[in-house]
């Protein structure tokens, strides 16, 4: 079934606004998505009808808020097919979810002779926590390299890890160039080697059906705001036995069972990891975002993105001198297209596109090791979602060719 994009667009108030006198073409979805009315209304409903702190309130509002908050957790579990809501920890964002694992599991399981294996496609949020952990423990960080079309170099996969490789932390979809990584294959190999695997799902969960049990990952991290939900909510899925053995991350209220003057015992999972009053309103509204995506059907979301990416790739290939990064086949990539003109800086491209109403990301996309390996300071990146159309891609293509002519005319 294909998405009824015109109908979807009506649910997003922001899409009817103009920028610089032109209809907004929002192609910065890999940074954050827009929000449908249903999500915005869920926020308002919470604040207008049952705003209360959760878990310990004896009153009606507190009970309603607690139920809605825990219902959202159950929706998240169902959305990624986690075995139980208890395996779902709410954080602030993907970055905090990864840091949680680095600070708790990492500190207990990574030592001086250990190695943490990353890939060149990682976002800084899946690099820096491991660099810090390695520095603290005297461990090593190593990277899986990439091919000429920015796919992971997996020749000799069976030799990638050895007994020292404690963790493989890998993104399922590259935020910078769109490559979809073969997560299942990597996880299988890692597990054969006794290596734990964290999958950064920030760019996959919003765009394709995710099944953490089928994938068999140990940790999976993603963010609400990239999938129609509010900012300020991230998710860490962890295998139950791992979460149970892990020490708490932040300490304070809510994460304890009993406190004496001398010490405390920890609450059960997942609350052990949710110290302090959580982001109640946004978690509840995130639940509304998941309802919205469920209704569309993630298979349909994915099909729509393949279609628009395929169209974008074919149109962009018409532009002379444009360098397009990532795998050539739309089926091998998320809805992300990163480009450069050899003699134009991505920020200049970004500025010219902006004045044509097209919002893209220009820069290093928090993936400086990848940019360095590409030999560029950055790229201009268009990223698509459920409300984007092929007509919008045409606007992008026209604006890119204008950017080119601006600079061509200035050349000697």
């Amino acid at each position, binding site marked *: 079934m294909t998405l009824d994009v015109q109908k979807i667009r009506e649910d997003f108030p922001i899409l009817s606004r103009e920028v610089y006198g032109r209809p907004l073409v929002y192609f910065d979805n890999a940074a954050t998505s827009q929000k449908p009315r249903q999500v915005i209304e869920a926020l308002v409903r919470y604040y207008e009808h049952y705003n209360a702190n959760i878990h310990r309130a004896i009153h009606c509002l507190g009970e309603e808020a607690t139920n809605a908050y825990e219902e959202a957790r159950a929706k998240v579990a169902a959305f990624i097919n986690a075995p139980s809501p208890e395996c779902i920890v709410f954080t602030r964002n993907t970055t905090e979810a990864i840091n949680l694992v680095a600070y708790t599991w990492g500190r207990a399981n990574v030592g001086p002779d250990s190695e943490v294996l990353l890939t060149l496609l990682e976002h800084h949020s899946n690099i820096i926590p491991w660099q810090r952990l390695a520095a603290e423990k005297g461990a090593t960080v190593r990277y899986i390299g990439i091919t000429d079309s920015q796919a992971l170099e997996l020749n000799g996969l069976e030799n990638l890890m050895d007994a020292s490789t404690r963790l493989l932390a890998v993104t399922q979809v590259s935020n910078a160039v769109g490559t979809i990584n073969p997560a299942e294959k990597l996880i299988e190999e890692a597990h054969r080697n006794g290596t734990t695997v964290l999958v950064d799902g920030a760019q996959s969960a919003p765009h394709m059906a995710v099944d953490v049990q089928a994938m068999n990952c140990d940790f999976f991290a993603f963010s609400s705001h990239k999938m129609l939900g509010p900012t300020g909510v991230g998710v860490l899925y962890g295998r139950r036995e791992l979460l149970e053995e892990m020490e708490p991350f932040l300490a304070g209220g809510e994460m304890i069972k009993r406190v004496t003057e001398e010490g405390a015992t920890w609450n059960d999972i997942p609350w052990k990891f949710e110290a302090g009053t959580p982001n109640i309103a946004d978690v509840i509204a995130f639940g509304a975002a998941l309802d919205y995506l469920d209704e569309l059907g993630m298979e349909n979301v994915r099909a729509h993105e393949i279609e628009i990416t395929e169209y974008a790739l074919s149109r962009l290939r018409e532009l002379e001198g444009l360098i397009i990064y990532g795998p050539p086949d739309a089926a091998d990539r998320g809805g992300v297209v990163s480009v450069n003109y050899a003699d134009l*800086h991505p*920020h200049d491209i970004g*500025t*010219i596109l902006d004045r044509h109403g097209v919002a893209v990301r220009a820069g290093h996309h928090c993936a400086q090791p990848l940019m360095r390996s590409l030999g560029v*300071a950055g790229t201009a990146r268009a990223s698509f979602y459920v409300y984007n159309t092929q007509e919008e891609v045409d606007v992008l293509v026209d604006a890119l060719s204008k950017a080119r002519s*601006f*600079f061509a005319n*200035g050349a*000697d």
Partner: protein
Amino acid sequence: MAPTREEEYARQEAELDELYRQVIIDHYRNPRHRGSLPSPTASHEGFNPLCGDEVTVDLLVNGGVIQDVAFNGAGCSISQSSASLMTEAVIGKPVQEAESLIREFTAMMTGSDEIDLEALGDLEALMGVRKFPVRVKCATLAWHTLHEALEEAESGG
């Protein structure tokens, strides 16, 4: 009356034309005094972590006068052309004059109305950046770096 769509489009085109003036693109493509000095009095590296623009300014100061300047770096057309234009503007100038030009240029970029266009000369080509607030930092990077280098030269010599 609100501008028509066509008027708004034309205004945006004009602002882009103003941003990417021939002078800017010429200096971007053919930067002047690009490189480093063999034995500089001071050398300073400027960096804009937001967009990754980098500019290193080498400075040769003698008798309170800037004898030579060279810059190296990587970044967008605005940051690099601004650095190139800057080298031409300050070579041969007394340090005090260069410092006041830095103030004048920064004032222009931050939208001050009391600017001496005559003193700015060719630098006036960068006026168009004012309509693009997120790019102002690109234009001022080299100038902040020059200021740091001048202070370094002062304290070192």
